[in-house]
């Protein structure tokens, strides 16, 4: 396969670690460099992955590249994506796609004008358990989908994730996009209305940590998303993605992270669930490497990113007004 020259902008979001590890699996990929405003972190990562460190992302984008993976804080996705598009690079940007609709649209426009692909990092689309559920639905096994209940619980993150000026929001921003994307994918339908109750009820960190979202789709399906950072410190596992999909002929219960062993850990006085799950990151990066090599349209696009962001932002609006918000798409 043709050589793909890929750079990574920032390890501010820790998913960069797993994405970069996945990149190294492909002999045709050249990891050109790592840019990070945090010099200590950037140099450490560049040394770990035996590549060049760049203080500024502009300097990395000036190199000969085919694609770039962007794992900055959420606010900076737009700035770096637009700069990368202008350089003619294919882009994989961490979720959420952006923090405002205007930013998201500017990113899509920049990619369109430059003729490059922009992909949003929704690893759940590449989780084998999620794919198996999607195949069963598409095969008509449960008939016509009627209603979906979904839960994405996790522990509260730290650092910039809980600074709204950098993250764009808390649990609602962080978790609604994953399930919103899967619900759109499973139903093949767009979102018509969004209602949300949210608040800072659990952790006292100055940001929304609890949220319940109800969405209605164009095809009449209704679904709920529980996006809360509901797990306390000792919860045995970080991630939980559960979905119940009720159809006219049956029901699917999906627990995307159920593949675990249960450890009673006497040393640390806790229970821990140890995952033997296959990572969605693997398929995600495989897809991006193919996009960089061929320029093909990715399985999950920037438009999917915008649509998921619309759900999160409408959820915040609904939380403020205590009314359902209608979504009109252009």
């Amino acid at each position, binding site marked *: 396969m043709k050589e793909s020259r890929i750079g990574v902008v920032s390890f501010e979001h820790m998913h960069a670690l797993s994405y970069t590890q996945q990149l190294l699996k492909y002999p045709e990929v050249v990891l050109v460099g790592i840019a990070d405003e945090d010099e200590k972190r950037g140099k450490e990562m560049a040394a770990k992955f035996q590549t060049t460190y760049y203080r500024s992302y502009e300097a990395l984008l000036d190199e000969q590249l085919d694609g770039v993976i962007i794992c900055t804080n959420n606010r900076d996705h737009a700035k770096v994506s637009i700069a990368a598009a202008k350089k003619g690079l294919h882009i994989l940007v961490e979720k959420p796609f952006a923090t405002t609709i205007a930013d998201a649209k500017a990113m899509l426009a920049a990619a369109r004008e430059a003729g490059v692909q922009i992909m949003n990092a929704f690893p759940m689309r590449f989780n084998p358990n999620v794919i198996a559920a999607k195949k069963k639905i598409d095969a008509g096994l449960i008939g016509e989908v009627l209603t979906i*209940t979904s839960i994405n619980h996790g522990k509260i993150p730290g650092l910039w994730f809980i600074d709204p000026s950098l993250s764009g929001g808390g649990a609602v921003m962080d978790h609604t996009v994953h399930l919103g994307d899967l619900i759109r994918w499973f139903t093949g339908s767009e979102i018509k209305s969004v209602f949300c109750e949210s608040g800072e009820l659990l952790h006292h960190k100055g940001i929304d940590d609890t949220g*319940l979202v109800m969405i209605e789709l164009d095809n009449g399906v209704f679904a*709920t998303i529980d996006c809360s950072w509901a797990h306390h410190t000792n919860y045995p596992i970080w991630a939980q993605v559960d979905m119940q999909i009720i159809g006219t002929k049956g029901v699917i219960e999906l627990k995307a992270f159920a593949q675990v062993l249960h450890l009673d850990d006497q040393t640390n006085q806790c229970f821990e669930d140890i995952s033997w799950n296959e990572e969605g990151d693997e398929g995600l990066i495989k897809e991006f490497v193919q996009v960089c090599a061929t320029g093909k349209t990715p399985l999950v696009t920037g438009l999917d990113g915008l649509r998921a962001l619309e759900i999160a932002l409408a959820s915040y609006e609904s939380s403020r007004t205590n009314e359902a918000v209608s979504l009109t798409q252009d």
Partner: protein
Amino acid sequence: MIRIALVGCGTMGETHAHAYTSLEDAKVVAVCDIRSHHAEALASLLGCEAFTSYEEMKKKADYDVLDICLPTYLHSRYAIDAMKSGKHVFCEKPIALTLEDANRMVETAEENKVTFSVGHVLRFFPQYQTAADQIKAGRIGTPALLRTTRNQAFPGWSWENWYQDLEKSGGPEVDLAIHDYDWLLCNFGPVTRVYAKNLGPKHPEQMHTLAILRFASGAMAHVEASWALPKGIEFRTTFELVGTDGQLCYDSTRDCPLKTQLGSDEEVSLFYDNPLSEEMNPYRAELAAFLHAVEHKTEPVVTAAEAIAALHIALAAKESARSGKVVRL
């Protein structure tokens, strides 16, 4: 000795009848069902007289309490009639289909100075009682996120399939989710806003409700109740209660002491049992609590006002699903 007449000898009537057999200070003196074989079966269990006419039972039998296990749309008519003749009334949940009917029942009970309670039995289920005790003891801190589910296949076995008729059963909000509404109100206080969706009449054998409730305390709840699961699937209830200091979970299919799996070439069936001693039987406990209130002229554990509050949430959820709007209480 309190003398009881039981009207409605279907599933719930049978459940109550079995509970009465171990209640020492109570005697069922008459049972009534328009289906004579149902009435006779319970009469032989209880050693009492069977009637196929309520009017005739009223004329011939001598009782203090009427226990109503009729379909919901008949609750208010029989409750009000019994109260007017001075009988105490225990009525299966939900109290009624409308707030008007429910209020008339309460007024009639007050006018006639009789004890009136409704079968919100969840409060007497040991797993829900234990959860309530843990919450009161502060084990999860301040409650924040509350999730409950109550899911099953469509109950197609009912008399004249009355569950399917929304005019008679009120649908899954009024018949099913109301259990959880009552339990949530009882333990987490009043609700200020309701937003809900349901499966409409396009799917008459797949009714389903999802509701998001906001409490005056600031806590929020996700209440799911379903008659939309495939036929043959076992009834399942769950709760997940998250507070500032902890999380409390229950799932009847996971936390189950006895699972029985039967197979043949064609199909496999799986049954979940949660065996309890007679003393722990929640239906016996709710009836014992009611009879205690009758005997001592005290307020029943489940008050009529609470039954109305739960109905209010159920009707708000239906209204929200119909209008697409938030309902404020």
